[in-house]
């Protein structure tokens, strides 16, 4: 038995015959009795270096989302590391190399399909094409969304009041605009916007200028005082109706919800009632006081702070953790 026999058995870009197949398996010292009757002969496609194809490893969850037509998008700036975003999550995309060869086959006969053939005691040869050979594939790793840019974008054009908007020509972003520039899923972007206390005004997402936010807060507090509403029985509807000429309704509503919690009761007419969220209000007012000065003697601060908050509310230092403030030991 010579090397040539093997060469011969392996030859042929034309379809192989039963004889060819038998010759090869005998050379390989295989016993036909042990083998199932369907044999598959693999051929490389004419263009098996498929530059237009990529293999990506996903999760069953992501696969389902794609199959159901949900948005799955790769996002990034030119030289950014790419991420893949579903509606709710973000994944780093990495290239995994393998020393193995991955042959990609559009069609294959699986073992349970190879049991029987038409012939009684022959073998059936199925020719199968290898569409491509791969040595690497794309892998997905769940990661945190890259939302740090968001604050920077929002601060480019803070909302300072209805009066200033007519002349406002600085850049504004809709939700879709933001998805264009932030590597995050829609849900993660929503969460980030909420954490920044951004509001959607006329379709654009805006962060409020801090002083403006304070003035909105004051309007609400003063309204509550002047109506002598109890601090645990504030009607949202009345606040919106009364103040909406001064402050866009959307902003009023957002701000209101930042500093209140539902009580679970309603007015006789059926409007929801709310109470002050003490911790959030104290944290906010603490920041109001500290902002202009940067540093404040602790005792003086505590005094000022307590006298600033609405009646019935008690400050305490733990509330400052709610906001973005730090307590230094020298103060």
């Amino acid at each position, binding site marked *: 038995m010579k090397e040539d026999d*093997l060469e011969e058995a392996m030859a042929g870009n034309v379809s192989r015959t039963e004889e060819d197949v038998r010759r090869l398996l005998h050379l*390989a010292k295989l016993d036909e009795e042990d083998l*199932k009757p369907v044999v598959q002969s693999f051929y490389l496609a*004419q263009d098996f270096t498929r530059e237009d194809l990529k293999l990506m490893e996903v999760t069953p969850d992501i696969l389902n989302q*794609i199959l159901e037509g949900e948005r799955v*998008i790769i996002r990034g700036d*030119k030289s950014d590391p790419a991420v893949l975003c579903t509606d709710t999550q973000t994944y780093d995309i990495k290239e995994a190399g393998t020393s193995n060869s991955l*042959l990609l086959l559009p069609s294959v006969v699986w*073992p349970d399909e190879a049991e029987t053939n038409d012939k009684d005691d022959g073998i059936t040869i199925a020719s*199968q094409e290898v569409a491509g050979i791969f040595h690497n594939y794309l892998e997905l790793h769940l990661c945190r969304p890259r939302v740090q840019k968001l604050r920077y974008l929002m601060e480019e054009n803070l909302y300072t009041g209805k009066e200033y908007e007519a002349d406002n020509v600085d850049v504004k972003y809709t939700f879709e605009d933001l998805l264009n520039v932030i590597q995050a899923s829609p849900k993660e972007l929503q969460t980030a916007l909420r954490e920044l206390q951004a509001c959607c005004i006329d379709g654009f997402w805006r962060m409020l200028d801090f002083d403006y936010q304070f003035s909105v807060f004051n309007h609400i507090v003063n309204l509550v005082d002047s109506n002598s509403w109890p601090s645990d029985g504030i009607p949202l509807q009345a606040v919106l109706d009364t103040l909406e000429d001064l402050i866009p309704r959307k902003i009023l509503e957002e701000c209101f919800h930042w500093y209140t919690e539902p009580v679970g009761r309603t007015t006789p007419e059926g409007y929801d009632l709310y109470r002050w969220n003490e911790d959030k209000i104290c944290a906010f007012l603490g920041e109001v006081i500290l902002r202009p000065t940067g540093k404040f003697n602790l005792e003086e601060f505590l005094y000022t702070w307590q006298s600033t908050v609405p009646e019935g509310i008690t400050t305490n230092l733990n509330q400052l953790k709610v906001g973005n403030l730090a307590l230094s030991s020298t103060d």
Partner: protein
Amino acid sequence: MVQILIRMPTSEDSKSGVPDWAVVELQGDLESKSGQEMHGSFVGDLHYTKKGAILIIGHHILFGKTVDVDKPFIVLRKKNSLTEHHHEANMLRSQKSLEHTQEEEASEVSVSIENLYDKHNYSTYYEVHAIVRKKILFKTRPKPIVTNVPKKL
């Protein structure tokens, strides 16, 4: 920044959904013995036994079996939609280019966006061409087929 959509083929492209393809995984590389063009050439024969699979390639015989992949693969095909009208125009550019500071070290294996889209073609998207859920895995090293009986010394 770019957004590259991964989508299912439209109904014109595929009448019956996305097909299941298979992967045959083996150690090493396929090479042409004589340096000939490999396009269209015969690779080897795949046989099934009761327990597994046997692949005869060139001078080698490999033993393996059919397994479900741990995580499914999708086969993505790069396309462009210059000629198609889709509301989600697949490559949206932002109006201004932003200063970008890299938040983390780009590791060697991160894929940069540049690798995934055509610079001169602003409407790249990827279509799911096929799904791979099963593979035939040949984990063992290929065994050479011995054809010559050594001459007596």
